[in-house]
C-alpha cells in the first residue's frame, strides 16, 4: 500500500491513474466506479433481457412449447428482479457517479470508499440471486413482489433470494447516502441548490426515497424469512397476522421504488430537451417542486396495487384519489418539456430522439396508470396484461430509454469521442418500433382479459401475443446496436470537442473533453456556475 498512499498526494495535481486490476477492485474514483456500475447494469440488462425472450418465446403461441410452467414463473420473477435491481437502479447510480461530481463542481463523490463498497456489493448480491437457478427447486418463482404465502413455499432458493435482496438494499442505501452527501456538501462554493442541473435535483430526491424505503423492504423480507424459518406469524392468519399486511409493507416500498426508477429519467430528459432545443428549460423551479411533490405523494398511494384484496371502501377511495393527484405534478413536467421545445431550434441527434420517445411513450404509460388508478376499473384490469403494458411503457421507453439517452448524450464527455450518428439513429428507430410492437398489443390483451404471469393462454389471445413476441425479438436484438455504438465510439470514434452539443450548459460541459480523472480539483470559478433557475 505504501506506493498508493504516496500517490494520494500526487492525485491532487496530476491525472494519475492506478493501473491493472487494483484500479477497479480498490477503486475510489467516481468515474471508475461509475463505469463499473454502467458495465454491470449492461450485463444485467442483457441477462434479464434473455429471460424476457424466454418468456416471449414461450408466449409466441398458445400451449407449452419450450419451458415448463415453474421455470416460466422463475423467468418472470428473475427477469423483474434483474431488471429493477440489477439494471435500472445500478445504471442510474452509475450515471450519478459520473455526472453528479462533474455537475456540482466537485473532485469526486463525498465518500469515495463507501462508493466502491456500494458497487462491489452488487456482483455478490446477484451471484446469490442467480445462483438460485441451480439449487434444488429452482430459482424463485413467486413473482418479484414476493407475496406470501406463495413465496414461502419456494424451495432452497428462498433464503438466497432474501439475502440477495438484503445485499442489494445495503448497496443502494449506501449509494444513495453518498449521492445526498455529495450534493449537499460538495457543491462548488457559491452554487445554490437552485443552480443545480435538474439531474442532480432529481437524483437528490431519488436518493432520499431510496434511504426511506429500502430499509422498509429489508424489514418486509426479514419478516418473510422469520415466518418461513423461525415460526413467526406476521403473514399467517391463524397466528393473528395477515398475508395482506405483507402487501401493504411491500408496496409502501414498492410505489416509491417505481419513482426511484423514473425520477432520474426526468432529470436526464430535462437536460437533453433544452440542449437540443437550444433554449433554457421552461419552468425550472416548477420542475423541482413537481419532483418533490411526486416524491411526497409516492408515499401515500401504495395501496393502488391492492384494490382487489378486500380493502375497506374508505381505503380504496383514499388511494384512488391520492394516486390521481400524482398526475398533476407529472403533467406539469410534461407540459414544461413541451414548452421548452416550443419555438426552439430543434435538432434530432440520437439523445434527443430517445428523449422525445420518452416524452411520448412515458406519457402513454402515465395515462394507462391513471386508468388503473380508477379503483372500480382496476377490478377488471388488475393482474392482466394491461398492467404489464402499463409498467413496461413507463419502464422501458421511460426509464431505459432515458438511460440510453443519457449515455449517448454524455459519452463524448466521458471518453472524448463521438458515437456514430447513423448507428445511434438505427439503434433508436429499431428500438422505438420494437418497443411499441412489443408492448402496445399487451394493452389489448389485458383489456380482453388475458392474465399476467401465465405460460399458456386461451387461443383468442393468440394473434396479439404473436405480434408482441415479434416486437420483443426486434427490440431485444436491436440492443446489440447500442453496444456496437458504444464500442465503436470508444475505439475509433471521432474526437469530440469540449462542448459537443452547442446548446449544452452546466458545469459538466465546462470541463475539458475527455473529462479529467479528478473532475474539479479546484473549485470552478464563480462566473461559470449556472445561473439560478436555469
Amino acid at each position: 500500500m505504501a506506493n498508493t498512499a504516496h500517490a494520494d498526494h500526487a492525485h491532487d495535481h496530476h491525472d494519475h491513474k492506478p493501473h491493472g486490476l487494483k484500479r477497479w477492485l480498490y477503486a475510489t474514483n467516481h468515474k471508475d466506479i461509475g463505469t463499473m456500475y454502467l458495465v454491470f447494469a449492461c450485463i444485467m440488462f442483457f441477462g434479464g433481457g434473455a429471460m424476457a425472450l424466454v418468456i416471449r418465446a414461450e408466449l409466441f403461441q398458445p400451449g407449452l412449447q419450450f419451458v415448463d410452467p415453474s421455470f416460466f414463473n422463475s423467468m418472470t420473477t428473475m427477469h423483474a428482479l434483474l431488471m429493477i435491481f440489477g439494471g435500472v437502479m445500478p445504471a442510474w447510480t452509475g450515471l450519478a457517479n459520473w455526472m453528479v461530481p462533474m455537475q456540482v463542481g466537485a473532485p469526486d463523490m463525498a465518500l469515495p470508499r463507501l462508493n466502491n463498497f456500494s458497487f462491489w456489493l452488487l456482483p455478490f448480491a446477484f451471484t446469490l440471486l442467480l445462483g438460485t437457478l441451480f439449487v434444488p427447486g429452482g430459482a424463485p418463482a413467486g413473482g418479484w413482489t414476493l407475496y406470501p404465502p406463495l413465496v414461502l413455499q419456494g424451495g432452497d432458493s428462498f433464503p438466497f433470494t432474501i439475502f440477495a435482496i438484503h445485499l442489494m438494499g445495503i448497496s443502494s442505501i449506501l449509494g444513495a447516502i453518498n449521492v445526498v452527501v455529495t450534493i449537499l456538501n460538495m457543491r462548488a462554493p457559491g452554487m445554490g441548490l437552485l443552480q443545480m442541473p435538474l439531474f442532480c435535483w432529481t437524483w437528490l430526491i431519488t436518493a432520499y426515497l431510496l434511504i426511506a424505503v429500502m430499509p422498509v423492504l429489508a424489514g418486509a423480507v426479514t419478516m418473510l424469512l422469520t415466518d418461513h424459518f423461525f415460526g413467526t406469524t406476521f403473514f399467517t392468519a391463524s397466528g393473528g397476522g395477515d398475508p395482506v399486511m405483507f402487501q401493504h409493507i411491500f408496496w409502501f416500498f414498492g410505489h416509491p421504488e417505481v419513482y426511484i426508477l423514473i425520477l432520474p429519467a426526468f432529470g436526464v430528459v430535462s437536460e437533453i430537451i433544452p440542449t437540443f432545443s437550444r433554449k433554457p428549460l421552461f419552468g425550472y423551479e416548477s420542475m423541482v417542486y413537481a419532483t418533490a411533490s411526486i416524491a411526497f405523494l409516492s408515499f401515500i398511494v401504495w395501496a393502488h396495487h391492492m384494490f382487489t384484496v378486500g380493502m375497506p371502501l374508505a381505503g380504496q377511495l383514499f388511494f384512488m384519489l391520492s394516486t390521481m393527484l400524482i398526475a398533476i405534478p407529472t403533467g406539469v413536467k410534461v407540459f414544461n418539456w413541451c414548452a421548452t421545445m416550443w419555438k426552439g431550434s430543434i435538432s434530432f441527434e440520437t439523445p434527443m430522439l430517445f428523449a422525445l420517445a420518452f416524452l411520448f411513450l412515458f406519457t402513454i404509460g402515465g395515462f394507462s396508470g391513471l386508468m388503473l388508478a380508477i379503483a372500480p376499473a382496476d377490478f377488471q384490469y388488475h393482474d392482466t396484461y394491461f398492467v404489464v403494458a402499463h409498467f413496461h411503457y413507463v419502464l422501458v421507453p421511460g426509464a431505459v430509454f432515458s438511460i440510453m439517452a443519457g449515455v449517448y448524450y454524455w459519452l463524448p464527455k466521458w471518453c472524448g469521442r463521438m458515437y456514430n450518428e447513423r448507428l445511434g439513429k438505427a439503434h433508436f428507430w429499431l428500438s422505438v418500433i420494437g418497443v411499441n410492437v412489443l408492448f402496445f398489443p399487451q394493452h389489448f390483451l389485458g383489456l380482453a382479459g388475458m392474465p399476467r404471469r401465465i405460460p399458456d393462454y386461451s387461443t383468442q389471445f393468440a394473434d396479439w401475443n404473436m405480434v408482441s413476441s415479434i416486437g420483443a425479438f426486434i427490440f431485444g436484438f436491436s440492443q446489440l446496436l447500442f453496444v456496437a455504438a458504444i464500442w465503436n465510439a470508444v475505439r475509433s470514434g471521432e474526437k469530440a470537442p469540449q462542448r459537443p452539443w452547442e446548446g449544452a450548459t452546466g458545469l459538466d460541459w465546462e470541463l475539458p473533453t475527455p473529462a479529467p480523472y479528478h473532475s474539479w480539483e479546484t473549485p470552478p470559478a464563480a462566473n461559470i456556475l449556472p445561473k439560478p433557475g436555469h
Partner: protein
Amino acid sequence: MATTHASHHHDDKYYVPHDSHWPIYGSVSLFTLMLGLCGWLNEWYGPYVFVAGLLMVVGLFVGWFNVVIGENQKGMYNTQVDQSFRMGMMWFIFSEVMFFAAFFGALFYARQLSVPWLGGEGAKMFNKLLLYKDFDNAWPTNGPARVGPRDDGSFEVIPAFGLPAINTAILLLSGVTITIAHHALKEGKRSILNIFLAATFLLGFLFVYLQAKEYSHAYTELGLKLSTGIYGSTFFMLTGFHGMHVTLGAIMLLVIWLRTMNGHFTPQRHFGFEAVAWYWHFVDVVWLGLFVFVYWV
C-alpha cells in the same frame, strides 16, 4: 500509509482518499456471511461458512475503522470531509429509523386491523360467524389458532412496570451520562469525559444483560417465544432488533472510550464521538417507542 503530505490538505483544497482494499474485502465478507446463512437454513455446510463470514465481518469493522481513525489522527481530513461524515451518519440513522418503522408498522397493523378483523369487526363479521367463532379481538393475542409453545395455547406477557421500566430508566440515564461526557469533551475536562463515557457503555451493557434475562424468563417460564403468534412475533422482532442495536451501540461506545483514554478527540473536532452519541440517542428513542407500544399500552 505514508502520510507525510498530510499537512498539504488545507481546508481550501479538496481531499480525495487513496484507494483501499476494504470495500472489496467487505463485500466478500458480507457475501460469505449471507451465503453461510443460506446454507445453514437449507441444512448444508452453512454454520462453518457463516462463522467464517462473521469473523471476516468483524475483521472488516476493525480494519476499515482502524484506517479511518489512523488517517483522522494524522489530520488528513479537512472540515469538508468531517461534514461529509456527519451527513453520512445522519442519513444512515434515518435509514435505520425506517427499518424499525417497518416493524412498528407491522405491530400497528396487527393491533388496529388484522386482529380486529379476525375477531369479526366491521365488514369482516363473517370471520366471527363462520371461521373463528371463539376468537375475540383482544391484545395480546397469538391468533385464532393460539399458536405457541404451550399445548393449551396460553402465554403470559412481561408487564411494563417491572424490568422494562427499569431498562427504560437505564437507557434514559445513559442518555444523560453521554451528554455530560460530551459537554466535558467540549470543555476539555478529560477525566469527567472518561468517567461518564465509561458509565454510558456500562449502562448499555447492563441493559443488554437485563434484556437477556427477560428473554430467558419469557422463553422458559412465560410460554412467550418468537413463535407465540403475532404477539411473540412483533415482541421479539422489535425488541430483538433493538437489542442488537444496543449491543452494537455499546460496543461503539466502548471503542470511543478506548480512544478517549488514548487521548483522541479535541474539543473542536470529535466526529467519531458525536456519531456514536447520535446513534445512542437513536436507540434510546426507539426504546421509548417500544416501551410505550410493545410493553405498555
